[in-house]
């Protein structure tokens, strides 16, 4: 039987990125994926018999450095063009933010266009400061990490050197709510709606919740297609991106096994000895890197009795209930929306609309008019064979995981609420639907093995960032069991397809084991 040095749990982008780096370092690596397909939340979904779509159709955090580290280009990866963002609605003219997060803006007053450009510039600069930490390992539990402290001091100093006023503005704005930031400088409600949507989607905060600007920083700190704030729709859908990650891992020598769910991480006397698969097979190895949700790693795969009660309890208290649903619609002809292609169409006509939809979800109720964003995907071969000309991948915000009325009931109303908007934006679209399906956060969680179905595995809020993510003490990718490591959206720097936490964790593993 083949033996391994490292078992990586989960073949999502982080698991695959880590596997590639670890294999490159000469380690024998096996990636164990529970489902039949690789990709995790980045994978393709068969939402109706024969129809496929991407759960995450867009890249906004895949920087050139990651492409280069994994040589993704060689493995078939290609960015699409920068997608513009267009307001969805019948009321022309639409607002279009084109280029990387609206390098050009159309559809707003000249005054707003100018104010937006200034705001954009400032936010991108601020986000870049925070983004510099994405590739850093957060401070560990003993906080004696002088390197990390020095880094923080260096970045603060650098920021200060960019000017006293900008520095003060950053310290003032960093924890503000996005609504106030937008209201201070902009007039157009629709433009403010677009900004607020980007800040709050995927996070359980409303535009008027303090700290909601952090969500926008997260969105803007990334770059894609070589442009900070850029958003690209990859050729061949997200499945192709994941295939490139997998190919990089395989080329480096990693084994990737799908349909191999791990039942438990084996530990003896506080040290990892390997993993046992659901089928009973045991894989012995000295290092295990779990690239799944921390709730799965520490709550399910590891026996609670291997962990301190305080730690186990803090993992249990992670806020992991997602509130974004996914609606897939297969159309027999492309939709007739405003704006250039490729585009993201956003229904978030004002901050008020977003806030009003945020309110009921706090109490487990379905909002009447939830904001959503829509991508038009090229159908894959199989969907095309069934007559699909376009696949709409729609993310609907503020749809609560714990829906009080139950998702059986809520599903229909939610689908209708979105279809009404689509109909208004592209009259007659309803007559061209070949197939559609709605995945609630509950179903997304079940389908992808991420309890809660949260985009970031658990809340990406101020109290769960950097050294506090997922919990203080484990943010440096080390688990409190020797030989066990973790990465994934639940760890720093959070979600968004980037492979970042996987790369960071792999780097830490290699550095730690060099000492052995």
């Amino acid at each position: 039987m083949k033996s391994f040095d490292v078992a990586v749990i989960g073949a999502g982008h982080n698991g695959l990125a880590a596997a590639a780096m670890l294999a490159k370092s000469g380690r024998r690596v096996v990636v164990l994926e529970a489902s039949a397909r690789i990709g995790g939340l980045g994978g393709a979904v068969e939402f109706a018999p024969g129809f496929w779509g991407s759960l995450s159709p867009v890249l906004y955090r895949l920087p050139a450095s990651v492409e280069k580290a994994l040589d993704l280009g060689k493995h078939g990866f290609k960015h699409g063009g920068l997608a513009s963002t267009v307001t969805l609605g019948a009321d022309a003219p639409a607002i279009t933010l084109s280029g990387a997060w609206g390098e050009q803006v159309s559809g707003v007053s000249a005054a707003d266009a100018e104010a937006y450009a200034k705001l954009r510039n400032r936010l991108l600069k601020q986000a870049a400061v925070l983004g510099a930490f994405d590739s850093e390992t957060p401070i560990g539990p003993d906080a004696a990490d002088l390197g990390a402290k020095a880094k923080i001091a260096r970045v603060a100093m650098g920021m200060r050197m960019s000017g006293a006023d900008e520095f003060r503005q950053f310290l003032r704005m960093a924890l503000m709510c996005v609504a106030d930031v937008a209201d201070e400088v902009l007039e157009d409600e629709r433009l403010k709606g677009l900004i607020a949507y980007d800040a709050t989607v995927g996070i359980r905060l409303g535009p008027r919740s303090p700290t909601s600007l952090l969500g926008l920083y997260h969105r803007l700190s990334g770059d894609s297609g070589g442009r900070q704030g850029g958003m690209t729709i990859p050729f061949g859908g997200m499945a192709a991106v994941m295939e490139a990650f997998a190919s990089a891992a395989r080329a480096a020598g990693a084994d990737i096994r799908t349909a191999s769910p791990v039942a438990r991480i084996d530990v003896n006397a506080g040290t990892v000895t390997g993993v046992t698969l659901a089928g009973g097979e045991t894989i012995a190895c000295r290092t295990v890197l779990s690239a799944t949700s921390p709730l799965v790693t520490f709550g399910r795969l590891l026996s609670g009795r291997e962990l301190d009660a305080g730690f186990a309890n803090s993992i249990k208290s992670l806020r992991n209930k997602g509130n974004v649903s996914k609606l897939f619609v297969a159309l027999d002809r492309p939709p007739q929306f405003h704006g250039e292609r490729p585009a993201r169409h956003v229904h978030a006509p004002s901050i008020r609309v977003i806030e009003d939809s945020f309110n009921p979800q706090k109490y487990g109720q379905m909002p009447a008019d939830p904001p959503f964003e829509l991508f038009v995907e090229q159908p894959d071969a199989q969907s095309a064979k069934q007559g699909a000309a376009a696949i709409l991948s729609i993310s609907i915000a503020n749809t609560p995981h714990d829906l009080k009325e139950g998702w059986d009931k809520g599903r229909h109303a939610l689908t209708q609420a979105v279809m009404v908007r689509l109909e208004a934006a592209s009259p007659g679209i309803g007559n061209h639907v070949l197939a559609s399906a709605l995945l609630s956060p509950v179903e997304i969680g079940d389908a992808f093995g991420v309890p809660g179905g949260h985009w970031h595995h658990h809340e990406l809020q101020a109290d769960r960032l950097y050294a506090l993510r997922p919990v203080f003490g484990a943010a440096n990718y080390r688990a409190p069991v020797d030989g066990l490591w973790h990465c994934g959206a639940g760890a720093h720097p959070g979600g968004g397809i980037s492979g970042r936490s996987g790369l960071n964790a792999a780097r830490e593993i290699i550095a730690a084991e060099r000492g052995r």
Partner: protein
Amino acid sequence: MSETASLATQDAKSATGFDVIVIGAGHNGLVAACYMQRAGLNVAVVEKNDWIGGAAVSRELHPGFLYSNCSYVCSLFRPEIMRDLELPRHGLQVIAYEGGAVFTRDGDYLASYRNHHAHRREFARFSPRDAETYERYSRDVTRQCRFVQPLLMRTAPDPASFKPRDIGELLYLARKFGGLTPSEMAQTARFWTMSISDFLDEYFESDVIKAYLAISGIIGTALGPMSPGTAYVLLHHYMGEVDGNVGAWGYARGGMGAITKALASSLRASGGTILTEAEVDKVIVERGRATGVALANGDELRARTIVSNADVKRTFLKLVNLADLPETFVSQVKNFKMRGSSGKLNIALDSLPEFPAMPADCPSIRGDLHFTDSVERMERAYDDWKAGRWSADPFVDMMIPTTLDPTMAPPGKHFVSCFVQYCPPKVEGRDWTDADRDGFAKTVVDQISEYSPGFRERILHMEVRTPREIEEEVGLTEGNIFQGELTFDQLLFNRPIPAYAQYRSPVPGLYMCGSSTHPGGGVMGAPGRNAAFEILRDLHKPSGHMSPAHEVF
């Protein structure tokens, strides 16, 4: 009050050549004035009303009843200031508070008791686990209080400045933070950014207990319990102390006006002047310097130092000519958030209200009483505010001060103070009408009556304060009781405006000392004290009479 007015008139007659003019006789203005006067400056406080005290005032609005019209508890007022300014000698007496209670919809209540074991057993009625978790919770919150308290009486640094003093203060902050253990640092970082609801979820399981503990996270803020940052607001209410008991709430005998009355008396005793019915129309700026104030009656008072106790918006958008201020400063002042979120009902009662759910001998009747038994209800009340309405099911912090201090009303009669959230500065975008005000009051009285049958029938007189009345009467813009919201972007070195958090303004000679400045609202006195410290420093006057913050042991 007539007594004050006549004294003021006398003061005016004898007044000559002031060094400092303080605009507004609120508690912070008076604190600043007292300290400056005691440093040998000749200080005049000018007040637009015919009474003094601003929002810390007791007034007779119904014969025989003293009302604490606006602020109603005395937990935050710094004991160092009381001592420096000899306020006890001038009649201030702060007494400790009973616990309180929240009534539940199922006919019960959750009380908080001063006795440790009673408190535990009370919580255990709702959850035995929560009853004990409370120990760890209060340990953690107390640790945070201990961390923050010493910051109250220090001037916040400008983090962008390279001046030795700013760097020194920054280092102080860094050292203070660095002195924590790593897990305390993590906990502090989380505490400062979490919502009180999320924070409590990590400790407790009982809705009622969470609702009760969430109260201090929202009082006075335009935030709901689920808004990040409200855990810090809780701290803001807890970091007070009564005689060294950190977190204890106190009550000023004779109402909150007793504080400002004592301050005024202390000021006069040291030779200071208070002019009432002296509304400031403009701060006079000549050759880029503040040189005096022009009163509404046409008089001008000259001084080389002008200190405004008014909020930052009122000070710079109304009292100073915009032309005298840098444009970016003006836009930042405009963006300063001070949305009013609360209203008040002051009620004179014919007799003590009854609460059938609570045994008559339960001491909690002497504490603060609430009627929202879940965080969700409190958050829904906030949703109404966001939509520009007063809450249909409001959060009410009700207190019957006459149970602690019977001297405020005729024997057997009672004064009830109801602090109500949420109450918007404008109703669905338009100005308040009298009908709106009455509708708001009815909502509150209806809620109380549900738990206290016959409450309405006991009412002898009721005064209703929406943000409109609060702004009109005490000049708090939009009726915001903290002179500016307590969100991160408006705290510490950001309060009120980055680079102007050191009590100075862009106009030389013009200073701020109200709650718009660090460390913010609540009847604390620290902004006034800190402002005086900075002014005395600028004027090269002694500050040896100002005690530093007491050590927190």
